[in-house]
């Protein structure tokens, strides 16, 4: 596998042409979305599907608009938990990966357990973190999000750090470069794209982790508690609207990290030259 961070900067077009091309790229996906919504809306009327089984998209949208204050506040509350968990989980993942990549023997001893962490059934784990950190605060949800984020970040960082071409390292050694220099100039830039891929995956996992945690108790302001509670009281329209808000926050988080990735990788590749 070649692991050089190749960032191709295309020749710059005018803004309007770029926007136009982007719109064209997204057109098929947009059409699919519209089609799905229309089929959903119409099939409920055609097949006489009961309101409590599947509400119409228009009803969900209407419900979102009526309860937007409550829903967006809930989304923001849950996002804070997800973000906290993401920072902790990714930070630990990178840290452990750095240690294991540097001290290989220690790495071989610890790696099985780090991988075993990914086998934790997160649903079963949630009530336990509630017991440890208290069910009402944000900490217990951050812990769950952190556990979910840890694994992909850890694995990808280790792979990034260790997939350097041996010839590059030999070259650095021949220049009498120390471990720190090799890390800074070769290992770190090689690992960056791997790390960012994992960071992006972790954004969505963090949001899922926070909501799973909220299913086992939390503030009524939190989105997961709201969705679960609305389901139990047959308010499926608001439950669906809540799911939509959760997705929106997750996607927003993903896009934000993706944007960060573009900036960082562009800078990393330019300093390398």
């Amino acid at each position, binding site marked *: 596998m070649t692991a050089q961070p190749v960032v191709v900067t295309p020749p710059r077009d005018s803004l309007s042409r770029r926007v136009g091309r982007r719109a064209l790229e997204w057109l098929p996906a947009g059409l699919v979305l519209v089609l799905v919504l229309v089929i959903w809306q119409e099939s409920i009327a055609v097949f006489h599907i009961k309101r*409590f089984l599947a509400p119409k998209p228009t009803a969900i949208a209407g419900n979102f608009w009526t309860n937007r204050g409550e829903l967006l506040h809930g989304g923001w509350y849950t996002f804070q938990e997800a973000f906290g968990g993401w920072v902790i989980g990714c930070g630990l993942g990178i840290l452990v990966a750095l240690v294991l990549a540097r001290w290989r023997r220690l790495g071989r001893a610890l790696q099985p357990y780090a991988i075993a962490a990914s086998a934790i059934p997160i649903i079963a784990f949630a009530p336990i973190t*509630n017991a440890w950190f208290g069910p*009402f605060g944000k900490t217990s949800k951050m812990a769950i999000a952190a556990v979910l984020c840890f694994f992909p970040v850890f694995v990808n960082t280790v792979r990034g750090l260790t997939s350097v071409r041996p010839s590059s390292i030999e070259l650095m050694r021949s220049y009498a470069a120390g471990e720190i220099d090799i890390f800074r100039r070769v290992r770190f830039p090689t690992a960056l794209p791997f790390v960012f891929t994992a960071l992006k995956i972790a954004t969505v996992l963090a949001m899922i982790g926070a909501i799973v945690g909220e299913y086992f108790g939390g503030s*009524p302001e939190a989105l997961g508690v709201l969705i679960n509670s609305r389901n139990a*009281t*047959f*308010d499926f329209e608001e439950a669906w609207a809540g799911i939509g808000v959760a997705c929106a926050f997750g996607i927003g988080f993903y896009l934000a990290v993706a944007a960060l990735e573009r900036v960082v990788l562009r800078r990393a590749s330019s300093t390398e030259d």
Partner: protein
Amino acid sequence: MSRKVWVWAAAVLVVTGMLANAAGASTRSEGSRKLTKITLQLKWVTQAQFAGYYEAKAKGYYEKAGLDVTIKPGGPNIVPEQVVAGGQAQFGIDWLSSLMLSRAKGVPLISIDQVFNKSGLTLISWKSSGINTVAKMKGKKVANWLFGNEFEVFAALAKHGMDPAHNKGVTIVQEPFSMDFFLKKQADVASAMTYNELAQVLEAKNPATGKLYTLKDLNVIKMQDTGTAMLEDNIFTTTGYLKNPANVATAKKFVAASLQGWIYCRDHQADCVKTVLANGPALPKGHQTWQMNEINALIWPAPKGIGIMNPASYKQSAKIVAKYGKLKTVPGHEAYRTDIAQAALQSLKAAGLDVYGRNWHKLNVKVTPGGK
């Protein structure tokens, strides 16, 4: 693992699943040749709250009425209304408020028997906190399970100028299904059913004294006394089911046999606790003994006869549900019918049974450490 292996594994799983299903179905049909099969979905896990139904089955009341009743325990993510509306059970037990909410969302359900005539919900706090009235809960952390179980509490708090639905004047937190948080004082006030959570607190040791907590350590505010009580456990079914006269007859038999179970449990608490224990409840004997006694206190005495809806209590419940369940209109009387319960009462009276329990008195049940 190769893809082939996965495909085989999946196939084996599916086949074993089908075989297991088929085996279950065949034994069930063998055991009950001429009985009408019905399923009852409970609101919660197996416990003395449902002793009457378990006893009716154990004593053969259902079988004598020509019924083969399967009792399905509930749990945190089981909504009985959804199970019954989905056709996986003919009858369900849940709080009346939940039925009203589901009806407002177009789920065609109807209550046929209001088993409990009092509310078992209380708000508890530590005596040392000094929070001995609802008014003093202003600015405090109050826990409730939510999911539609919060209406009585919200109405009580609102009476004293707080806005619990928007966390103004009081902080609402979602109560977990264990009272650890209250013992650790992570919230000031907890919601507690007289028959469950209250006992769980009393079954715990006070680390300061090494002895069990007692009622003297607690402030217990009953919703029955705050004027915001709502009706709880009722038997319901779908309106569609009752369109068939044969099913109405089945419902009458089912309700009569169930109520007979409850009458038996009023007069033989210890027997009914044994029956519940035989059905594998999550919490042990001491806890179920306490619960049986408290459950009887929610049913007896029954001034109109067990199971008959009290219209005034219904109205109060409907008003509170409409307000806190965000309903556009207050649920009317079409949410319940009493003819089935009345017919059941007639047959029980004809059999010489006491359906009022005017002389029933609460027993003095001592809590045991850990409910053992």
